[in-house]
Structures are given as structure tokens and as C-alpha cells.
């Protein structure tokens, strides 16, 4: 693309490109301008063609280019830092192009080696962020070392989590023993990212041990970690939080119990998680969903339970149950169960808003797509209650398509 076609040459002010204000940071003495920085100066908002050519050149000499670029990074975010950042980004993206594994590997290696010589935390974190995108198992030890420094701890932990390998998981687990305070808690929580299959079997217990000593403020992050790991031992704590005074902590606990019910490996553990939800909120959507997610849908054995939930006075629960009956259950036996429920309860006038519930059931029958419901729905066209007749008409239309209303009227008459 020619430069003449550009509408805006310096997005966002592009002060560095215009040679704007320079900073004299303490680290500037360590700077050096060699071939890499000469190339970097041309990469600020470069045309792609120029950028690609420069990236290729830089990658050919990654072992020398990366230290040179790294030496020009510092917290003052001066012009050299900006240029070096562009160059490192070009190398990172070019080296990660599919099919360029040797280049990725040599770049990652050079980035890891440069970590020790970084001028300050900001500079080190720029390098770590590049490793977050292209790093692999070989870079894990260098990143794990960065966990020991407060200023690079968060960035290194993000990078290790993003690498996501067993090697990265074990590096975090191994350094957990010597970690203290916030870093210990956060590292424990990070272990959940790697999934149960990758984990050392002791990891869930390690995280639970950290939770036992954690402050109340840190507990939600560790609940989430243990829920991700499928650690059923956390269920009672979650149940307690769900019944506690803090609605925001209850929200986390509710989400964690749902997640736990999904992630537990044994039926007993799943049951324990669901039981905590039910103890706190028997008639709620999260309880219902957790139960439904862990029961068979094919045989329709859950349909009576869902019909009970559809009778809830809580309209959120009622509609969620109705939607499950519509979307998750097929077959005429389910239709028969719903019709039977309707008929058994049709004289249950003592119940709250029975007309409303009947309309919900009619709507469910209309939207399940089972034409076996049609005769029953047709019979409701003679119901003494106008709202029921109207619901039945709409349900039949949903079921059969846009029927000729005159035919329906004829049927009624």
C-alpha cells in the first residue's frame, strides 16, 4: 500500500513517530542503538509490507535483536521504548505464524534470556507479555523465576496460565510452597486454570489448604478455583456463603456450586454440590438447572419435577421450567405426562394463579413440536375460560403452523 493513500499517518498523536518529548529515565544509560533499533524506528505504524520485511530480518537474528530491543524498554515509555515495543510485536506475530515453529522457538528462547537484564518491571513485563503469546514449555522456568518478584508476578502468572501446559501448572504448584500472602493465594487460584486432567493429584488439596487460611476477601477466588477443579470438599463452604448475608458473595457461591456440579467426577460429589444448592434455594433456577444438567433427558423421568417447577409462584422459575420442557424433551410420552398433569390438576382451584399455570402448560404443548398434543389442545378450544381458549388457539398455531382461523372457529362451533 502506498503512503499516498494514507488518510491519517499518526494515529493517536503518534508522538514518538513525530519525535516528540523524550524522557530521560534512569535506565536510559543502558540503551544501545544497533541494527535492531534502526529497524525498529521504521516499524512505528508501518505499512504491512515494510513491517513484514523488517520482522523477517529481525527474526533471522533474534538472539542479538531481542537483547538490543529489550535494553531500550523502560518504564518512562520514551520513544525508544515505543519503537522497541513495535519491533517486539512484529517479531512475536511473525514468529507465531503457523508453520514457523523454529522461528517461534528461537524468539521465545531469546525473550526468556532477556528477562534477567530488563531495566525495570515495566520492561520485563513487556517481554513477559510477548512470551504470553509465543512462549512454550522451554520458557516456563524463566517465567517461574519472575513469580518471585512482586513487579513481574502478575504478568508472569498470566503468561504461565496462558501457556497452559502441565509444565506451567507444575511450575506454579512448585513455587506455591515458598510463596506468601497475596501471591500464595493468587498462585493457588491460578492452578485451577489447568484442568483436573493436567493437575498433580495433590493440587486440589493444596488449593483447599490455602483456602483454609485465606482471608474472607480472598475466599471467592479460591472457591472458584476449587469449583473449576471439581473439588467437592468446598461445597459446604459454598452452601454457607449462599445462605449468608452478602448477596455478592452468595452470587459467587451460586455460580461456583453450578460449576462444581458440572465438574465433579463422581456421582456422590455431584449430588453433594446440588444438595447445597437445594438446601439454600430449593425452588430456584440455578438449583433446577444444576439438577437437570446432571440427569438424563431421554427417558423423561425429570418431567414430573419440571412440571412441579412450572407450577412455582416464582415466574422466573416457572418460565425456566417451561423452556426446559419445550427445548430439552422430545416424544409423545412426555406430551402425555404434561396432559395428564394438566387434567389431574384442572380442578385444583385452590392453587395460586391456576389459570396462569394452565396457560403455561398449553404454551409448552404448543411449542414442543409434538403433534400428538393437537387433539387435547383442540379440546381446550371449548374451555369456558376465554384466556384458555385463546392460549389453545395460539398453541395450535405454533404446533401446526398458521392454520386457517376459520377452520378453528368451525371446530369450536
Amino acid at each position, binding site marked *: 500500500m502506498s503512503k499516498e493513500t494514507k488518510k491519517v499517518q499518526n494515529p493517536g498523536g*503518534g508522538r514518538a513517530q513525530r519525535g516528540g518529548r523524550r524522557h530521560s529515565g534512569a535506565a536510559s544509560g543502558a540503551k544501545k542503538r544497533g541494527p535492531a533499533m534502526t529497524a525498529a524506528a521504521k516499524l512505528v505504524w508501518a505499512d*504491512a509490507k515494510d513491517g513484514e520485511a523488517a*520482522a523477517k530480518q529481525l527474526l533471522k537474528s533474534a538472539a542479538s535483536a531481542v537483547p538490543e530491543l529489550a535494553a531500550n524498554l523502560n518504564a518512562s*515509555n520514551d520513544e525508544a521504548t515505543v519503537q522497541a515495543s513495535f519491533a517486539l*510485536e512484529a517479531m512475536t506475530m511473525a514468529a507465531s505464524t503457523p508453520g514457523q515453529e523454529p522461528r517461534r522457538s528461537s524468539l521465545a528462547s531469546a525473550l526468556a534470556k532477556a528477562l534477567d537484564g530488563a531495566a525495570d518491571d515495566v520492561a520485563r513485563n513487556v517481554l513477559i507479555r510477548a512470551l504470553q503469546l509465543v512462549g512454550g514449555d522451554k520458557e516456563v522456568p524463566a517465567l517461574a523465576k519472575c513469580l518471585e518478584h512482586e513487579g513481574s508476578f502478575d504478568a508472569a502468572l*498470566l503468561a504461565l496460565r496462558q501457556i497452559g501446559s502441565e509444565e506451567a501448572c507444575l511450575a506454579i504448584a512448585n513455587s506455591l510452597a515458598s510463596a506468601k500472602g497475596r501471591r500464595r493465594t493468587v498462585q493457588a487460584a491460578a492452578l485451577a486454570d489447568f484442568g483436573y486432567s493436567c493437575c498433580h493429584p495433590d493440587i486440589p488439596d493444596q488449593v483447599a489448604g490455602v483456602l483454609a487460611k485465606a482471608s474472607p476477601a480472598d475466599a471467592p*477466588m479460591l472457591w472458584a478455583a476449587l469449583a473449576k477443579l471439581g473439588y467437592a470438599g468446598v461445597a459446604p463452604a459454598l452452601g454457607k456463603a449462599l445462605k449468608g448475608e452478602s448477596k455478592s458473595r452468595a*452470587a459467587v457461591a451460586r455460580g461456583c456450586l453450578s460449576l462444581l456440579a458440572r465438574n465433579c467426577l463422581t456421582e456422590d460429589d455431584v449430588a453433594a454440590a446440588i444438595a447445597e444448592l437445594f438446601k439454600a434455594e430449593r425452588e430456584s433456577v440455578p438449583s433446577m438447572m444444576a439438577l437437570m444438567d446432571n440427569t438424563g433427558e431421554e427417558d423423561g423421568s425429570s418431567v414430573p419435577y419440571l412440571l412441579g417447577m412450572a407450577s412455582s409462584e416464582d415466574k422466573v422459575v416457572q418460565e425456566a421450567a417451561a423452556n426446559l420442557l419445550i427445548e430439552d424433551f422430545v416424544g409423545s410420552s412426555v406430551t402425555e405426562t404434561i396432559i395428564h398433569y394438566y387434567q389431574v390438576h384442572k380442578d385444583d382451584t385452590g392453587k395460586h394463579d391456576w389459570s396462569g399455570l394452565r396457560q403455561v402448560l398449553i404454551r409448552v404443548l404448543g411449542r414442543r413440536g409434538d403433534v400428538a398434543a393437537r387433539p387435547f389442545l383442540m379440546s381446550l378450544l371449548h374451555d369456558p375460560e376465554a384466556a384458555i381458549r385463546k392460549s389453545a388457539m395460539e398453541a395450535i398455531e405454533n404446533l401446526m403452523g398458521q392454520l386457517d382461523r376459520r377452520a378453528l372457529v368451525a371446530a369450536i362451533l
Partner: protein
Amino acid sequence: MSKKTARAAKSPSKTAPNIVKSETLGSAGRPGANDRINHAVIGLGGMGQGHLGYVLKDPQAKLVAVCDVMQSRVKASLEKVGGDCRGYRDFREMIDHEDIDVVHVVTPPHWHALQNIYALDAGCDVWAEKPMTRTIAEGLHIAEAVRRNGRVFRLNTWFRLYGAFYGLGVDIKPLKKLVQNGLLGWPLTVRISAHTGFAWKASMWTGKLGLPPEKPPADIDYDLWLGPAPYKPYTSHRVSPSFRGYWDYDGGGLADMGQHYLDPVQYILDKDDTSPTEIEATAPWPQHPDVVGLWGQVEMKYADGCKLILESCEWGPEETKDKPFIEGPLGKVYRNFRTEPERLAELVVELPDPEPQISDFNVSIRTRQKFGLNELNGNRSNILVHLANCAIRTGRKLHFDPETLRFRNDETANRLAEQPMRLPWGLL
């Protein structure tokens, strides 16, 4: 994919919503037809003020709380709204102390998924700002939280539902009618550029290079502003309202306007349950790792040959000039509904209307039916924004799997699309 995840990832139903009359609802703590709905707004910047306006203008709504990490904004908003509305710095404290039906999430996008999910797990419905999330992977977490809690979710763009579609000069209903009745043929190409009526604000939302670090003012809780984002030294340009120019929080003009422009297109093309498979960008390259820059063109192709061409008209060539907004083998539609052949414009009145959609969030709240633009179709249009930005940043053609929502054979692109959050923040 687990049963649960599979459910969350389900496409929105293609059947018309069965709208329950709101007068039949409203008990057991849920708002009934005559109850006012309690709203709370998190994020009180420019868009936050817009959301305060939405609530204050709605006779069915009551604003009970506002929240922002900048205390001056909380104070100013409380003075503006008056009454017994209360202010908070931390959204968790707001959830603890208030009885809220609907939470408006109007913070920068790096907070969207977290706060949406917090509100959903707290039993609230959500009115969320766009872009729906900051990364591709976050969208499914929101969809799952909506599902597991039985809540309703509204994304704050509306052009698939009503309103003149920006500079196109027409709402999208006639376009939808032409497309769904096959009058333009298939596959279709859609051009979204200043020439077809859509300004991408690319230069408006670029960041600034080389800003020296500053001390955060006392007014802002900077650590809470950063939240799940990686720590970076404070500069005043990094935070509101210019946060869109930094990758850690948003994605420039493309992310600002993308869902406004692209969501209706997905709807017109009937792509609410899929995504493009090939994405290629023309832009300055490399991009800066922190600061969002300009871009020129992004082309996205679907598996069936349909194509989207996004052009910023602020960098690079302009290939969409004098081209139609939408074009198929049988017809074209230009701005102001000029068509080729001309008779298409006349024919459209005879065509059947598209399926109805719920366009009033109060109806969704009271009937518990999905809003027209919800967590599922909203996530699909949100994905387009992030696909485009991933292509701009990597500088290469990307191949995307619309089922797994991952790039094919491109680990680094996937690392951009699914990033961990800075602990203690994380998604359930």
C-alpha cells in the same frame, strides 16, 4: 463440550417468540405489570449517563443505585438523578446493599463479562453495553450464566429491532425482507464503510504512544478500574473516556461501533448461529502491543460464500466508494434504499414481514422471554468485532471454526481470543 456448555452455546430459537402477556405475570418478587422495576447502573461515563437517561425516562423503572470507581462521577450522577438513589464505588457493595432487578453494565469492556456474570448470578437481569465482551472466549461464559440463572439479557444496540440504520438511510426491515425472500440471490456481499453510511471512528479511538506514567488522582481507584486487566502504569489517557484506544480494555473504533454495524448484518444474512470462517485485514503492521492503531479494511467470509467488507476510510485504499451496501447475484441495494433492479424497492411492500422480535426490554423482564438481541445472537455479532481485531493484530489471514469458536491451527491468535484475567478476578 458438556451438556451444559452445549446448551449455552445453542443458537437462538428460529421460531417466533411466544410473548406472554405481562399482566399474567408478576409475583414472588418479580416485577408485575404495575410494579416499578429497580435498576442500577455500573459505570457513569458518557454511556453511563445515557443509561441513566434510559432509566429516568421509563415510567416503569426506578433507579435505585449508581456505581463508579471515580467518586466524582458518583457524586455528579447522584446530584443529577436526585431522590433516594444511592452511590457506590465497588459494584459488589452495591449488590450487597440494594434490591436490584436490572443491572446496567456500562463500564469499559474489560469489565463487561465479569460484571454481567456477577449480576446474573446475583439474580438480576442485565442490560449490557457493547461490545459484549473483550475477548471471544468470554461470550460463552455470559451465555452460560444467563442460562443457569434463568435471567434475561439485553445488549445495548437496537438496529436489528428498529431505527434508521445509521447512514444507510433506511431501517433494516426492507433489507431483511429482500434477503429472506431470495430477491438478491445468494451468496451476498455486504460493505460497511463511510461510503455506505457507517463511520468507523478509527482515528477517534486510537491510543497515544509514549505517554509517561502519571500518579493516579485520588478520585479514581485505579486498581479497581484495571480489575481483571494486566497492570500498566497509570496515564490519564488510559482510563475513561479514551480507554478504547488500548487493547487491554477495548479495541478501538472497531469495537466501539462494530456491534452497532455488524449485528444487523448478521441478522439480515440469517447468521445468528454462525460466524465467518476466513478473516483477513489490511492495516498498519505491526500494531503496538498496548496502543490501538488505525486499520484500513477487513474482509470476513462465511462458509457459504457470503462476505463482509469493513472499510475504515481513514487509512489505506477505498474500494467501497460507489459500491452497494449489499449485493447478490440478482440485485443490489445502495444507500437510501436505491436498488438494482429498481423494482426491488417497490416489490418489498408485498413481501411478508420477518418474524417478530421482542424489542421492549420491559416485556422481556415481565414475561421472561428472550430479548430480540440477547446473549446468544449478541455474542455472535460480538465475535465479528474480535475476529477483525485479531486479524489486524496478527497481520495474517485467520481461519476460524464457528463451532468451537477457535482459530484453526493458530495458537497465538487463540491466545489473543482467550486471555486469562488478572487474579483475583476470573470468570465462572
